[in-house]
């Protein structure tokens, strides 16, 4: 199943699942991820019929969520390609549905009856779902990344935010890494030459999951982490989920206002950080779209002339 780069002369190919948030509110994530993919030899194919992953209706109607997820999985299966998400919630939701459909024959039959009758699709359970960051870590690997570094990021200290659905629950992801002590993002940060900063409550949830229900609760959850990262004087937070970004960057001004604090903490998507390390111009990584400007951080980077 694995698409190890060195195993195959062809470029590994995935369908790119954007979900709801990325194509509207996180263009910088999409731009930088596509740029990195191009640079590292990954082919990402667009499927224009992809919709929402189904996650938002899981709490309202579980079977409806499974149907929506299965519909997307069926579209990827038609192309015969593994599915790559940029959003961690999409990754969790599609992985869970995939897992259930693969394991439960009765459920698979029911879903296919409804899917084929209602929207003319079937899903046989044949594809792999993964996160863009996992592809970088597992399919490309930190060694191969480190070999391509063109700029010196050693003066940067950035705080990794894993988010919840990137590692949990292990019942659906398997033991890809210890959710109580994950390392993949720290390692990917170190592979760029930047330093990964440790801070209190590093694994804390962003609060995005309750934003629609109770904004004040969600903002209070995000504020705690901004505070802890500021305590460590990190140059930026680095994350891999557009919804975590909505909380830490999109809502940072609001959090500052509500809690009477000032953070001005740049929030980078990992592909942006990696892109800088690979010598790609900030503009080509959508850095202009970052709401909290990372100008100071970019100034600290030394371009190698070799």
């Amino acid at each position: 199943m694995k698409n190890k780069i060195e195993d195959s002369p062809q470029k590994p190919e995935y369908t790119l699942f954007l979900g709801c948030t990325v194509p509207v509110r996180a263009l910088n994530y999409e731009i930088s991820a596509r740029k990195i993919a191009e640079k590292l030899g990954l082919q990402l194919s667009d499927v224009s019929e992809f919709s929402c992953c189904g996650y938002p209706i899981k709490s309202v109607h579980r079977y409806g969520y499974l149907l929506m997820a299965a519909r997307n999985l069926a579209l990827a299966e038609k192309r015969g390609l593994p599915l790559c998400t940029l959003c961690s919630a999409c990754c969790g939701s599609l992985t869970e549905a995939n897992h259930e459909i693969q394991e439960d024959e009765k459920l698979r039959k029911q879903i296919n009856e409804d899917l084929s009758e209602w929207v003319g699709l079937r899903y046989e359970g044949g594809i792999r779902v993964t996160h863009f960051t996992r592809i970088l870590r597992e399919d490309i690997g930190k060694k191969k990344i480190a070999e391509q570094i063109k700029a010196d990021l050693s003066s940067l200290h950035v705080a990794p935010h894993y988010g919840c659905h990137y590692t949990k629950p292990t019942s659906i992801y398997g033991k890809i890494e210890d959710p109580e002590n994950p390392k993949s993002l720290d390692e990917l940060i170190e592979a760029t030459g930047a330093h990964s900063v440790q801070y209190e409550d590093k694994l804390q949830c962003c609060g995005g999951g309750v934003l629609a229900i109770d904004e004040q609760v969600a903002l209070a959850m995000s504020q705690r982490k901004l505070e802890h990262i500021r305590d460590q004087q990190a140059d930026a937070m680095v994350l891999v989920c557009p919804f975590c970004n909505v909380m830490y960057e999109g809502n940072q001004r609001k959090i500052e206002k509500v809690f009477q604090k000032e953070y001005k903490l740049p929030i980078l998507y990992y592909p942006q950080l990696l892109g800088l390390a690979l010598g790609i111009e900030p503009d080509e990584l959508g850095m202009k779209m970052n709401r909290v400007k990372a100008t100071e951080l970019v100034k600290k980077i030394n371009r190698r002339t070799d």
Partner: protein
Amino acid sequence: MIDSKKFDPDFKLLIASEPGGENIKKCFSCGTCTAGCPVREVTDRYNPRRIIRMAILGMKKEVLSSDFIWLCSSCYTCFERCPQNVKIPELMNAIKNIAVREGYLPSSMKSQLDLLASFGRLLEVTDFENEKRKESGLPLFQGRTEDVEKILKKLGFHREEQDRG
């Protein structure tokens, strides 16, 4: 004052028969979930141990009509740590699914369903967004995915029906 005569002893069985709620009766109230809950850290309105206890006791109406069942952020911290594998975020979803069937659908969730039915996504990709995408060299986006509306309609979440509810 809690009146135990009003408890519904079958409520836990109803939850246990709902996908995700199967393990509710295994809970022995150790409180590992509440102790590590990031929502609980910022508000005492959400307390998973308490909610599960109320559900097991049979406080059906109090649980289903409450706001607090909707405050789980689905971070899965308790899911990983629960010694009894109660799968709390899934259990909360099972309870929320029942609540919705009983007519307790929060307005924000209703708006999300409307958006999904209209655009197939939570956010509409308008001409403005597509213009921005074009300028950034990104492929243009097909804004509407009618299949989602079809699925939601078949499941009884058509907008007119919701408006009646």
